[in-house]
């Protein structure tokens, strides 16, 4: 098994990093560039910047942020939120991002994934899926930062995006995200067994043990964490130590 990647997810609004619960709320938690640098210096494996309000304002405005981040953060950077056109992707990559995360646009126009993965390569294209539980082992796909239901089934959609050419899936549980109460393990069990591309689990991590529980039960490739770092509940070292103590391989 691969080494598990521990990824810091930083939601951004204008010049602030924010943290919501259930993808709601704009509480400011710091300066995104400072936070990214801090996490990089402390051993995080990757950074994801999500423009949390791109859906509201029909814009995306993270290029300046990415440029600054690239100047001193030398680990993979993914940017998402409001990626709607081939130009948006081009600009994001030109600014220094390695990957882009796409949700709403892909649901509206699935061909966008195949188009963009052909042009930029699958490794650049992360399909961001927001999942809301609607029954036993059933989840619905949401768009617009967890606001608009789509009637699509998460499992089916995950398989679709893989076929369309996405390189990875970042799967966020709307029910768990921001709650610090652990991952929706069933969600990841269902999806990770249905696709062959890497899956990043996002949403719910409150302590290192949450990741242990998830990884012991699911063949997940990475965990994206936010509250635990932004609220300084545990350090990156502590999280990684907990994983190592439980025989889970990570980058040191």
């Amino acid at each position, binding site marked *: 098994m691969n080494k598990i990647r521990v990824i810091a997810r930083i939601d951004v609004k204008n010049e602030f990093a924010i943290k919501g619960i259930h993808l709601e709320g704009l509480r400011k938690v710091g300066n995104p560039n400072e936070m990214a640098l801090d996490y990089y210096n402390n051993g995080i494996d990757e950074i994801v910047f999500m423009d949390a309000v791109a859906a509201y304002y029909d814009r995306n405005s993270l290029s300046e942020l990415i*440029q600054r981040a690239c100047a*001193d953060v*030398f*680990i993979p950077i993914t940017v998402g939120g409001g990626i709607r056109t081939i130009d948006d992707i081009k600009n994001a990559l030109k600014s220094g991002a390695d990957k882009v995360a796409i949700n709403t646009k892909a649901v509206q126009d699935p061909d966008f994934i195949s188009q963009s993965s052909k042009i*930029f390569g699958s*490794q*650049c294209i992360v399909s961001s899926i927001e999942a809301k539980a609607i029954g036993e082992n059933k989840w619905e796909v949401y768009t617009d930062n967890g606001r608009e239901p789509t009637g699509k089934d998460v499992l089916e959609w995950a398989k679709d995006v893989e076929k369309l050419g996405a*390189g990875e899936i970042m799967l966020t549980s709307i029910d768990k995200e921001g709650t610090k109460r652990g991952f929706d393990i069933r969600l990841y069990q269902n999806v990770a067994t249905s696709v062959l591309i890497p899956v990043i689990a996002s949403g719910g991590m409150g302590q290192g043990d949450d990741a242990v529980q998830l990884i012991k039960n699911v063949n997940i*490739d990475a965990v994206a964490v936010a509250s635990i770092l932004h609220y300084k509940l545990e350090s990156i070292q502590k999280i990684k130590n907990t994983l190592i103590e439980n025989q889970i391989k990570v980058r040191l």
Partner: protein
Amino acid sequence: MMIAVIDYGIGNVRSILSAFENQGANVFLTRDKNKILESDGVILPGVGAFSHGMDSLNKHGLVDIIKEYVESNKPFMGICLGMQMLFEESEEFGVTKGLGLISGKVVKLPTKDSQNEKLPHVSWNELNSGKIQWPNTVLENIKEGSDMYFVHSFVAQPNNESNVLSTTEYSGYNFCSSVKSGNIYGCQFHPEKSGKIGLKIVKNFIRMCKE
């Protein structure tokens, strides 16, 4: 002392430029023949499809420029797709010719036929020594087993073991993660994305350019 990063429209060049600047190099992006030939070191970046990369190099007349530069024996490093293109050919989407600077071909990463092994290989993974000792190479002072960042579905298979600088294991298969042929280097991983250890590799390359 100038280091040129080849501009053929592909690859995350900004990160490469940042990484080299961060380590104190005078680095610039170019596809100009003279500037490339006059540089003290050249980087070939690249991500994505081999055929797309080669098409773009051909379109900009860069294949001959690279070959000419390499004859000078000054340091040259291909990163990710840049490393793959050093070889003779790739089997991605049918057979495509590469730069042919190192003997060997590029194939899909062999994975065990099991649900656990996913492609692309996206992860931090360890460098293990190949045939070549690491002192006096770009991997000087790098600890054996260091984690570097990989994201690829294809790998190079050098015909000569003596070109293998490091190997890495994925899905039960040891693939060549970096190569050396004289002063030509190739890294399948991304040194500019591999944290502080990656920056050490960048620094090593810069030092070679000075010599």
